[in-house]
Protein backbone atom coordinates (compact mmCIF):
# COMPACT_ATOMS: atom_id res chain seq x y z
CA UNK A 1 0.00 0.00 0.00
CA UNK A 2 1.35 3.41 -0.92
CA UNK A 3 -0.06 6.74 0.20
CA UNK A 4 1.17 9.70 -1.79
CA UNK A 5 0.06 12.97 -0.29
CA UNK A 6 0.32 16.66 -0.99
CA UNK A 7 -0.41 19.10 1.83
CA UNK A 8 -0.77 22.66 0.70
CA UNK A 9 -1.65 26.07 2.09
CA UNK A 10 -0.29 29.50 3.04
CA UNK A 11 3.16 29.77 4.53
CA UNK A 12 2.57 29.94 8.28
CA UNK A 13 -0.37 27.49 8.42
CA UNK A 14 1.86 24.75 9.77
CA UNK A 15 1.74 22.70 6.58
CA UNK A 16 5.35 21.59 6.76
CA UNK A 17 5.01 20.42 10.35
CA UNK A 18 1.82 18.57 9.55
CA UNK A 19 3.66 16.69 6.81
CA UNK A 20 6.62 15.98 9.04
CA UNK A 21 4.40 14.53 11.77
CA UNK A 22 2.73 12.27 9.24
CA UNK A 23 6.15 11.16 7.98
CA UNK A 24 7.43 10.57 11.49
CA UNK A 25 4.31 8.57 12.35
CA UNK A 26 4.86 6.43 9.27
CA UNK A 27 8.44 5.84 10.37
CA UNK A 28 7.22 4.74 13.79
CA UNK A 29 5.02 2.19 12.03
CA UNK A 30 8.16 1.00 10.24
CA UNK A 31 6.89 2.00 6.85
CA UNK A 32 9.02 3.59 4.17
CA UNK A 33 8.52 7.34 4.33
CA UNK A 34 9.70 10.54 2.68
CA UNK A 35 8.91 14.24 3.01
CA UNK A 36 9.94 17.01 0.68
CA UNK A 37 8.87 20.65 0.75
CA UNK A 38 8.41 23.12 -2.02
CA UNK A 39 11.02 25.77 -1.44
CA UNK A 40 11.88 29.05 -3.00
CA UNK A 41 10.87 32.67 -3.14
CA UNK A 42 7.22 31.69 -2.67
CA UNK A 43 7.97 30.84 0.97
CA UNK A 44 6.86 34.11 2.53
CA UNK A 45 3.12 34.43 2.44
CA UNK A 46 2.58 32.50 -0.80
CA UNK A 47 1.37 28.96 -1.27
CA UNK A 48 3.65 26.39 0.29
CA UNK A 49 3.28 22.65 0.03
CA UNK A 50 4.99 19.43 0.87
CA UNK A 51 4.93 15.92 -0.55
CA UNK A 52 4.66 13.02 1.87
CA UNK A 53 4.88 9.35 0.98
CA UNK A 54 4.05 6.55 3.40
CA UNK A 55 4.50 3.16 1.79
CA UNK A 56 5.11 -0.54 2.27
CA UNK A 57 7.32 -0.46 -0.84
CA UNK A 58 10.68 1.26 -1.30
CA UNK A 59 10.07 4.86 -2.31
CA UNK A 60 11.14 6.10 -5.73
CA UNK A 61 10.57 9.77 -6.50
CA UNK A 62 9.86 11.66 -3.26
CA UNK A 63 8.15 14.46 -5.18
CA UNK A 64 4.49 13.53 -5.51
CA UNK A 65 2.99 14.34 -8.90
CA UNK A 66 -0.13 12.15 -8.82
CA UNK A 67 -1.28 12.21 -5.19
CA UNK A 68 -3.98 9.96 -3.82
CA UNK A 69 -4.42 12.29 -0.86
CA UNK A 70 -4.52 16.08 -1.12
CA UNK A 71 -5.03 18.53 1.72
CA UNK A 72 -6.05 22.01 0.62
CA UNK A 73 -5.74 24.55 3.40
CA UNK A 74 -6.55 27.54 1.19
CA UNK A 75 -8.21 28.29 -2.15
CA UNK A 76 -5.09 28.50 -4.36
CA UNK A 77 -4.16 25.03 -3.09
CA UNK A 78 -7.54 23.65 -4.11
CA UNK A 79 -7.15 25.10 -7.59
CA UNK A 80 -3.62 23.84 -7.95
CA UNK A 81 -4.00 20.28 -6.72
CA UNK A 82 -7.61 19.15 -7.20
CA UNK A 83 -7.00 18.38 -10.89
CA UNK A 84 -4.03 16.07 -10.26
CA UNK A 85 -5.56 13.76 -7.65
CA UNK A 86 -5.54 10.13 -8.66
CA UNK A 87 -9.08 8.87 -9.39
CA UNK A 88 -10.45 7.26 -6.24
CA UNK A 89 -8.20 9.43 -4.09
CA UNK A 90 -9.17 11.71 -1.23
CA UNK A 91 -9.39 15.49 -1.06
CA UNK A 92 -9.53 17.17 2.33
CA UNK A 93 -10.71 20.75 2.23
CA UNK A 94 -10.33 23.31 4.99
CA UNK A 95 -13.85 24.72 4.70
CA UNK A 96 -13.11 27.53 7.18
CA UNK A 97 -11.08 29.27 4.48
CA UNK A 98 -12.44 27.72 1.28
CA UNK A 99 -16.04 28.45 0.39
CA UNK A 100 -15.84 26.89 -3.06
CA UNK A 101 -16.97 23.37 -3.85
CA UNK A 102 -14.63 20.82 -5.38
CA UNK A 103 -15.53 19.86 -8.95
CA UNK A 104 -14.27 16.30 -9.22
CA UNK A 105 -16.76 13.46 -8.86
CA UNK A 106 -14.31 10.58 -9.12
CA UNK A 107 -12.65 11.26 -5.76
CA UNK A 108 -13.77 11.29 -2.12
CA UNK A 109 -14.20 14.74 -0.71
CA UNK A 110 -13.99 15.62 2.97
CA UNK A 111 -14.69 19.10 4.27
CA UNK A 112 -13.63 20.21 7.69
CA UNK A 113 -13.87 23.72 9.22
CA UNK A 114 -10.42 23.39 10.72
CA UNK A 115 -9.88 27.00 11.76
CA UNK A 116 -13.26 27.12 13.48
CA UNK A 117 -12.58 23.93 15.37
CA UNK A 118 -9.18 25.22 16.45
CA UNK A 119 -10.78 28.48 17.58
CA UNK A 120 -13.33 26.52 19.61
CA UNK A 121 -10.42 24.78 21.27
CA UNK A 122 -9.05 28.22 22.05
CA UNK A 123 -5.82 27.96 20.04
CA UNK A 124 -5.62 28.94 16.38
CA UNK A 125 -2.17 27.39 16.18
CA UNK A 126 -3.55 23.84 16.29
CA UNK A 127 -5.48 24.15 13.02
CA UNK A 128 -2.94 21.93 11.34
CA UNK A 129 -3.43 19.24 14.00
CA UNK A 130 -7.18 19.28 13.44
CA UNK A 131 -6.52 18.66 9.77
CA UNK A 132 -4.01 15.94 10.52
CA UNK A 133 -6.64 14.16 12.59
CA UNK A 134 -9.02 14.52 9.68
CA UNK A 135 -6.55 12.98 7.22
CA UNK A 136 -6.01 10.00 9.47
CA UNK A 137 -9.75 9.45 9.93
CA UNK A 138 -10.52 9.96 6.26
CA UNK A 139 -7.81 7.73 4.82
CA UNK A 140 -6.61 5.38 7.59
CA UNK A 141 -3.14 5.81 6.12
CA UNK A 142 -1.65 5.52 9.61
CA UNK A 143 -2.84 5.14 13.21
CA UNK A 144 -3.77 8.18 15.23
CA UNK A 145 -1.68 6.82 18.09
CA UNK A 146 1.41 6.87 15.86
CA UNK A 147 0.87 10.57 15.20
CA UNK A 148 0.70 11.14 18.94
CA UNK A 149 3.91 9.22 19.44
CA UNK A 150 5.52 11.23 16.68
CA UNK A 151 4.38 14.45 18.31
CA UNK A 152 5.77 13.39 21.67
CA UNK A 153 9.12 12.64 20.04
CA UNK A 154 9.32 15.78 17.96
CA UNK A 155 8.33 18.00 20.85
CA UNK A 156 10.16 16.07 23.55
CA UNK A 157 11.42 19.38 24.93
CA UNK A 158 7.93 20.88 25.17
CA UNK A 159 5.70 18.21 26.77
CA UNK A 160 3.15 20.86 27.77
CA UNK A 161 2.12 21.20 24.14
CA UNK A 162 0.86 17.65 23.90
CA UNK A 163 -2.50 18.09 25.59
CA UNK A 164 -3.97 20.75 23.32
CA UNK A 165 -2.49 19.18 20.22
CA UNK A 166 -3.86 15.77 21.11
CA UNK A 167 -7.28 17.33 21.64
CA UNK A 168 -7.09 19.00 18.24
CA UNK A 169 -6.02 15.80 16.55
CA UNK A 170 -8.89 13.82 18.09
CA UNK A 171 -11.43 16.53 17.32
CA UNK A 172 -10.36 16.53 13.69
CA UNK A 173 -10.73 12.77 13.48
CA UNK A 174 -14.11 12.80 15.26
CA UNK A 175 -15.44 15.47 12.96
CA UNK A 176 -14.75 13.32 9.93
CA UNK A 177 -16.20 10.21 11.58
CA UNK A 178 -19.42 12.04 12.48
CA UNK A 179 -19.96 14.21 9.43
CA UNK A 180 -18.52 12.44 6.45
Amino acid sequence: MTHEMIMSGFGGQGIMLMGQLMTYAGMIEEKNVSWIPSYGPEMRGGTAYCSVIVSDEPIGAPMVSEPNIVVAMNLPSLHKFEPVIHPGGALIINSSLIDQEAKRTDIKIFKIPANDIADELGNAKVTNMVVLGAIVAATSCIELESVLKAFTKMFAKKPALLEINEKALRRGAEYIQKNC
Partner: protein
Amino acid sequence: MAEKVLMKGNEAIGEAAIVAGCRHYFGYPITPQTELTEYMSRRMPKVDGVFLQAESEVAAINMVYGAAGAGARVMTSSSSPGISLKQEGISYIAGAELPCVIVNMMRGGPGLGSIQPAQGDYFQATKGGGHGDYHNIVLAPNSVQELVDITVLSFDLADQYRNPVMILGDGALGQMMEPAEFHSSNTGLVKKPWAAAGMRGRGKPNIINSLYLQPEALEQHNIHLQRKYALIKENEIRYEEIKTEDAELVLVAYGITSRIARSAMERARAEGMKVGMFRPISLWPFPEQQLAKSAENASALLTLELSAGQMIEDVRLSVGNIKPVHFYGRTGGMMPSPQEIYQEIVNIMNGKGGK
Protein backbone atom coordinates in the same frame (compact mmCIF):
# COMPACT_ATOMS: atom_id res chain seq x y z
CA MET B 1 23.09 5.77 17.78
CA ALA B 2 21.32 2.98 15.94
CA GLU B 3 17.84 4.40 16.40
CA LYS B 4 16.30 5.77 13.22
CA VAL B 5 15.78 9.50 13.12
CA LEU B 6 13.86 11.57 10.63
CA MET B 7 16.18 14.18 9.20
CA LYS B 8 16.57 16.63 6.38
CA GLY B 9 19.27 15.62 3.94
CA ASN B 10 21.35 18.72 4.60
CA GLU B 11 21.27 18.23 8.35
CA ALA B 12 21.94 14.51 8.05
CA ILE B 13 25.21 15.29 6.23
CA GLY B 14 26.19 17.53 9.13
CA GLU B 15 25.45 14.92 11.77
CA ALA B 16 27.20 12.23 9.74
CA ALA B 17 30.31 14.42 9.51
CA ILE B 18 30.32 14.77 13.27
CA VAL B 19 29.86 11.03 13.70
CA ALA B 20 32.82 10.56 11.33
CA GLY B 21 34.98 12.65 13.64
CA CYS B 22 34.92 15.90 11.69
CA ARG B 23 35.39 18.76 14.12
CA HIS B 24 36.16 21.58 11.70
CA TYR B 25 33.64 23.08 9.35
CA PHE B 26 34.05 26.20 7.24
CA GLY B 27 31.19 27.45 5.12
CA TYR B 28 29.20 30.29 3.67
CA PRO B 29 25.40 30.41 3.35
CA ILE B 30 23.81 29.58 0.04
CA THR B 31 20.44 28.10 -0.82
CA PRO B 32 19.69 25.17 -1.05
CA GLN B 33 22.39 23.92 1.35
CA THR B 34 22.23 26.59 4.07
CA GLU B 35 20.60 24.17 6.54
CA LEU B 36 23.91 22.31 6.64
CA THR B 37 25.85 25.45 7.52
CA GLU B 38 23.23 26.34 10.11
CA TYR B 39 23.23 22.82 11.56
CA MET B 40 26.99 22.98 12.02
CA SER B 41 26.71 26.36 13.76
CA ARG B 42 24.41 24.73 16.32
CA ARG B 43 26.17 21.38 16.66
CA MET B 44 29.90 22.10 16.51
CA PRO B 45 30.03 24.09 19.76
CA LYS B 46 28.29 21.15 21.50
CA VAL B 47 31.04 18.72 20.50
CA ASP B 48 33.95 21.10 21.09
CA GLY B 49 34.28 21.52 17.36
CA VAL B 50 34.94 24.58 15.26
CA PHE B 51 32.25 26.22 13.16
CA LEU B 52 33.34 29.23 11.20
CA GLN B 53 31.27 31.20 8.75
CA ALA B 54 33.83 32.46 6.28
CA GLU B 55 33.54 35.76 4.44
CA SER B 56 33.22 33.86 1.16
CA GLU B 57 33.53 30.43 -0.40
CA VAL B 58 37.02 31.36 -1.53
CA ALA B 59 38.00 31.93 2.08
CA ALA B 60 36.14 28.83 3.27
CA ILE B 61 37.97 26.45 0.94
CA ASN B 62 41.30 27.98 1.88
CA MET B 63 40.45 27.53 5.55
CA VAL B 64 39.83 23.90 4.63
CA TYR B 65 43.23 23.83 2.90
CA GLY B 66 44.83 25.09 6.10
CA ALA B 67 42.92 22.79 8.44
CA ALA B 68 43.49 19.73 6.23
CA GLY B 69 47.16 20.60 5.92
CA ALA B 70 47.30 20.84 9.70
CA GLY B 71 45.90 17.30 9.97
CA ALA B 72 42.19 17.74 10.76
CA ARG B 73 39.14 15.96 9.38
CA VAL B 74 37.51 18.97 7.75
CA MET B 75 34.51 19.74 5.63
CA THR B 76 32.99 22.58 3.65
CA SER B 77 29.72 22.72 1.77
CA SER B 78 28.00 24.94 -0.74
CA SER B 79 25.84 24.94 -3.83
CA SER B 80 26.79 25.50 -7.45
CA PRO B 81 27.83 29.20 -7.59
CA GLY B 82 29.78 28.81 -4.37
CA ILE B 83 31.42 25.61 -5.58
CA SER B 84 32.65 27.50 -8.63
CA LEU B 85 34.42 29.91 -6.30
CA LYS B 86 36.06 27.01 -4.48
CA GLN B 87 37.68 25.57 -7.58
CA GLU B 88 41.02 27.31 -7.17
CA GLY B 89 41.32 26.00 -3.63
CA ILE B 90 40.27 22.50 -4.63
CA SER B 91 43.03 22.43 -7.24
CA TYR B 92 45.58 23.38 -4.56
CA ILE B 93 44.16 20.77 -2.19
CA ALA B 94 44.39 18.10 -4.87
CA GLY B 95 47.91 19.23 -5.76
CA ALA B 96 49.06 19.17 -2.16
CA GLU B 97 47.24 15.85 -1.64
CA LEU B 98 45.16 16.89 1.30
CA PRO B 99 42.14 14.96 2.55
CA CYS B 100 38.89 16.87 2.89
CA VAL B 101 35.20 16.57 2.12
CA ILE B 102 33.41 19.09 -0.08
CA VAL B 103 29.64 18.99 -0.43
CA ASN B 104 27.86 20.42 -3.48
CA MET B 105 24.07 20.52 -3.26
CA MET B 106 23.57 21.53 -6.87
CA ARG B 107 21.10 24.14 -8.08
CA GLY B 108 20.10 25.44 -11.49
CA GLY B 109 22.70 27.34 -13.53
CA PRO B 110 24.61 28.78 -15.25
CA GLY B 111 25.35 32.03 -13.42
CA LEU B 112 23.09 32.88 -10.53
CA GLY B 113 20.55 30.50 -12.10
CA SER B 114 17.89 29.37 -9.67
CA ILE B 115 17.76 27.73 -6.26
CA GLN B 116 15.91 24.64 -7.46
CA PRO B 117 17.56 21.21 -7.81
CA ALA B 118 19.81 20.51 -10.79
CA GLN B 119 22.71 18.33 -11.91
CA GLY B 120 24.51 20.75 -14.18
CA ASP B 121 27.83 20.57 -12.29
CA TYR B 122 28.65 16.99 -13.33
CA PHE B 123 31.43 18.06 -15.67
CA GLN B 124 32.87 20.45 -13.13
CA ALA B 125 32.87 17.80 -10.41
CA THR B 126 34.13 14.81 -12.36
CA LYS B 127 36.42 16.28 -14.99
CA GLY B 128 38.55 18.53 -12.84
CA GLY B 129 36.77 21.78 -12.18
CA GLY B 130 39.88 23.73 -11.33
CA HIS B 131 43.15 23.92 -13.23
CA GLY B 132 45.60 21.08 -13.69
CA ASP B 133 45.46 17.31 -14.03
CA TYR B 134 43.60 16.15 -10.97
CA HIS B 135 40.53 14.27 -9.86
CA ASN B 136 38.23 14.52 -6.92
CA ILE B 137 36.62 11.32 -5.78
CA VAL B 138 32.98 12.15 -6.53
CA LEU B 139 30.14 10.32 -4.80
CA ALA B 140 26.45 10.76 -5.57
CA PRO B 141 23.98 9.51 -2.94
CA ASN B 142 20.27 9.24 -3.66
CA SER B 143 18.61 9.06 -0.24
CA VAL B 144 19.04 10.59 3.18
CA GLN B 145 20.43 7.31 4.50
CA GLU B 146 22.95 7.23 1.71
CA LEU B 147 23.89 10.86 2.33
CA VAL B 148 24.77 9.76 5.85
CA ASP B 149 26.69 6.63 4.85
CA ILE B 150 28.52 8.36 2.04
CA THR B 151 29.49 11.31 4.20
CA VAL B 152 31.12 8.96 6.68
CA LEU B 153 32.75 6.98 3.87
CA SER B 154 34.01 10.19 2.26
CA PHE B 155 36.09 11.08 5.30
CA ASP B 156 37.63 7.61 5.31
CA LEU B 157 38.41 7.69 1.58
CA ALA B 158 39.81 11.21 1.80
CA ASP B 159 42.25 10.12 4.51
CA GLN B 160 43.08 6.83 2.85
CA TYR B 161 44.03 8.41 -0.48
CA ARG B 162 44.94 11.90 0.75
CA ASN B 163 42.51 13.25 -1.81
CA PRO B 164 39.55 15.64 -1.80
CA VAL B 165 36.20 13.87 -1.91
CA MET B 166 33.18 15.66 -3.31
CA ILE B 167 29.67 14.66 -2.35
CA LEU B 168 27.49 15.61 -5.29
CA GLY B 169 23.90 16.08 -4.18
CA ASP B 170 21.19 18.48 -5.24
CA GLY B 171 18.61 20.81 -3.77
CA ALA B 172 15.97 18.09 -3.51
CA LEU B 173 18.17 15.67 -1.58
CA GLY B 174 19.17 18.45 0.76
CA GLN B 175 15.61 19.48 1.49
CA MET B 176 13.94 16.11 1.78
CA MET B 177 13.42 14.21 5.02
CA GLU B 178 13.76 10.47 5.36
CA PRO B 179 14.67 8.15 8.22
CA ALA B 180 18.37 7.62 8.76
CA GLU B 181 20.61 5.60 11.03
CA PHE B 182 24.12 6.67 11.93
CA HIS B 183 27.08 4.29 12.02
CA SER B 184 30.52 5.50 12.86
CA SER B 185 33.47 5.63 10.51
CA ASN B 186 35.30 2.43 9.58
CA THR B 187 38.80 3.72 9.95
CA GLY B 188 38.15 6.35 12.58
CA LEU B 189 40.68 9.12 12.92
CA VAL B 190 43.96 8.14 11.32
CA LYS B 191 47.48 9.33 12.08
CA LYS B 192 48.78 11.99 9.70
CA PRO B 193 52.53 12.06 10.07
CA TRP B 194 52.78 14.26 6.97
CA ALA B 195 50.70 17.13 8.42
CA ALA B 196 52.05 20.56 9.24
CA ALA B 197 51.18 20.26 12.89
CA GLY B 198 54.36 21.80 14.30
CA MET B 199 57.60 19.78 14.44
CA ARG B 200 57.13 19.02 18.14
CA GLY B 201 60.36 17.04 18.23
CA ARG B 202 59.93 15.50 14.77
CA GLY B 203 63.33 16.69 13.55
CA LYS B 204 62.36 17.26 9.93
CA PRO B 205 59.84 19.90 8.84
CA ASN B 206 56.69 18.85 6.99
CA ILE B 207 55.89 21.03 3.99
CA ILE B 208 52.40 21.22 2.50
CA ASN B 209 52.81 22.44 -1.04
CA SER B 210 51.72 22.20 -4.66
CA LEU B 211 54.63 24.16 -6.18
CA TYR B 212 57.28 22.23 -8.09
CA LEU B 213 59.43 24.69 -10.01
CA GLN B 214 61.49 22.00 -11.71
CA PRO B 215 59.46 20.54 -14.58
CA GLU B 216 61.01 17.14 -13.93
CA ALA B 217 59.84 17.23 -10.35
CA LEU B 218 56.36 18.38 -11.28
CA GLU B 219 56.10 15.65 -13.87
CA GLN B 220 57.10 13.09 -11.25
CA HIS B 221 54.46 14.53 -8.94
CA ASN B 222 51.86 14.21 -11.69
CA ILE B 223 52.89 10.64 -12.41
CA HIS B 224 52.49 9.92 -8.73
CA LEU B 225 49.02 11.49 -8.74
CA GLN B 226 48.00 9.49 -11.79
CA ARG B 227 49.14 6.27 -10.12
CA LYS B 228 47.02 7.14 -7.16
CA TYR B 229 44.03 7.85 -9.40
CA ALA B 230 44.54 4.47 -11.11
CA LEU B 231 44.45 2.82 -7.69
CA ILE B 232 41.25 4.66 -6.83
CA LYS B 233 39.74 3.53 -10.13
CA GLU B 234 40.63 -0.02 -9.26
CA ASN B 235 39.25 -0.01 -5.75
CA GLU B 236 36.57 2.59 -5.31
CA ILE B 237 33.94 2.00 -7.97
CA ARG B 238 30.45 2.05 -6.51
CA TYR B 239 27.12 1.52 -8.22
CA GLU B 240 23.72 -0.11 -7.92
CA GLU B 241 21.91 -2.30 -10.45
CA ILE B 242 18.19 -2.91 -10.35
CA LYS B 243 16.55 -5.49 -12.57
CA THR B 244 19.19 -5.22 -15.25
CA GLU B 245 19.59 -9.00 -15.77
CA ASP B 246 16.82 -9.31 -18.34
CA ALA B 247 16.47 -5.64 -19.25
CA GLU B 248 16.08 -4.65 -22.87
CA LEU B 249 16.37 -1.00 -21.90
CA VAL B 250 18.72 0.15 -19.14
CA LEU B 251 18.09 3.50 -17.52
CA VAL B 252 21.19 5.28 -16.25
CA ALA B 253 20.68 7.94 -13.61
CA TYR B 254 22.32 9.19 -10.41
CA GLY B 255 21.19 11.15 -7.35
CA ILE B 256 17.62 12.37 -7.12
CA THR B 257 17.02 11.57 -10.80
CA SER B 258 17.59 7.89 -10.09
CA ARG B 259 14.69 8.03 -7.62
CA ILE B 260 12.35 9.36 -10.28
CA ALA B 261 13.77 6.92 -12.81
CA ARG B 262 13.08 4.09 -10.42
CA SER B 263 9.41 5.03 -10.15
CA ALA B 264 9.19 5.18 -13.92
CA MET B 265 10.94 1.83 -14.21
CA GLU B 266 8.48 0.15 -11.82
CA ARG B 267 5.62 1.54 -13.86
CA ALA B 268 7.11 0.15 -17.06
CA ARG B 269 7.76 -3.21 -15.43
CA ALA B 270 4.14 -3.33 -14.30
CA GLU B 271 3.21 -2.95 -17.97
CA GLY B 272 5.46 -5.87 -18.85
CA MET B 273 8.32 -3.86 -20.32
CA LYS B 274 11.77 -5.18 -19.58
CA VAL B 275 13.40 -2.10 -18.14
CA GLY B 276 16.24 -1.98 -15.63
CA MET B 277 18.32 0.69 -14.00
CA PHE B 278 22.03 1.25 -13.48
CA ARG B 279 22.92 3.85 -10.90
CA PRO B 280 26.51 5.09 -10.65
CA ILE B 281 27.25 6.03 -7.05
CA SER B 282 30.87 6.92 -7.67
CA LEU B 283 30.76 9.40 -10.55
CA TRP B 284 34.52 9.58 -10.49
CA PRO B 285 35.73 6.95 -10.81
CA PHE B 286 32.87 6.17 -13.19
CA PRO B 287 31.80 2.50 -13.23
CA GLU B 288 32.65 2.08 -16.92
CA GLN B 289 33.17 -1.65 -17.13
CA GLN B 290 30.35 -2.40 -14.73
CA LEU B 291 27.93 -0.39 -16.82
CA ALA B 292 29.13 -2.01 -20.03
CA LYS B 293 28.60 -5.41 -18.47
CA SER B 294 25.27 -4.51 -17.01
CA ALA B 295 24.00 -3.34 -20.38
CA GLU B 296 25.53 -6.26 -22.28
CA ASN B 297 22.22 -7.86 -23.15
CA ALA B 298 20.20 -4.68 -23.43
CA SER B 299 19.42 -3.22 -26.80
CA ALA B 300 19.49 0.42 -25.69
CA LEU B 301 20.24 2.76 -22.80
CA LEU B 302 18.45 5.85 -21.61
CA THR B 303 20.46 8.40 -19.66
CA LEU B 304 18.45 10.66 -17.39
CA GLU B 305 19.85 13.84 -15.89
CA LEU B 306 18.84 17.22 -14.54
CA SER B 307 21.08 18.78 -17.16
CA ALA B 308 21.31 19.11 -20.90
CA GLY B 309 23.43 15.97 -21.01
CA GLN B 310 26.73 15.62 -19.17
CA MET B 311 26.97 12.14 -17.66
CA ILE B 312 25.82 10.78 -21.00
CA GLU B 313 29.37 11.31 -22.27
CA ASP B 314 30.67 8.85 -19.71
CA VAL B 315 27.83 6.46 -20.50
CA ARG B 316 28.78 6.56 -24.17
CA LEU B 317 32.46 6.07 -23.37
CA SER B 318 31.49 3.05 -21.28
CA VAL B 319 29.27 1.20 -23.75
CA GLY B 320 30.88 2.36 -26.98
CA ASN B 321 29.01 2.94 -30.18
CA ILE B 322 27.39 -0.46 -30.42
CA LYS B 323 24.04 0.50 -28.95
CA PRO B 324 21.95 3.61 -28.96
CA VAL B 325 22.27 5.76 -25.84
CA HIS B 326 19.18 7.91 -25.54
CA PHE B 327 18.92 10.97 -23.38
CA TYR B 328 16.20 12.72 -21.49
CA GLY B 329 16.93 15.70 -19.27
CA ARG B 330 15.30 18.71 -17.69
CA THR B 331 17.24 21.84 -16.76
CA GLY B 332 16.93 25.07 -14.84
CA GLY B 333 15.57 23.45 -11.69
CA MET B 334 12.73 21.63 -13.44
CA MET B 335 12.14 18.05 -12.38
CA PRO B 336 10.66 15.40 -14.64
CA SER B 337 7.76 13.40 -13.23
CA PRO B 338 7.88 9.60 -13.26
CA GLN B 339 5.15 9.76 -15.92
CA GLU B 340 7.34 11.90 -18.17
CA ILE B 341 10.17 9.40 -17.98
CA TYR B 342 7.74 6.51 -18.39
CA GLN B 343 6.59 8.11 -21.63
CA GLU B 344 10.19 8.29 -22.85
CA ILE B 345 10.57 4.61 -22.02
CA VAL B 346 7.42 3.74 -23.95
CA ASN B 347 8.63 5.71 -26.96
CA ILE B 348 11.96 3.93 -27.00
CA MET B 349 10.42 0.50 -26.43
CA ASN B 350 8.02 1.13 -29.31
CA GLY B 351 10.93 1.94 -31.54
CA LYS B 352 10.03 5.57 -31.82
CA GLY B 353 13.30 6.57 -30.24
CA GLY B 354 13.87 9.06 -27.49
CA LYS B 355 14.62 12.70 -27.73
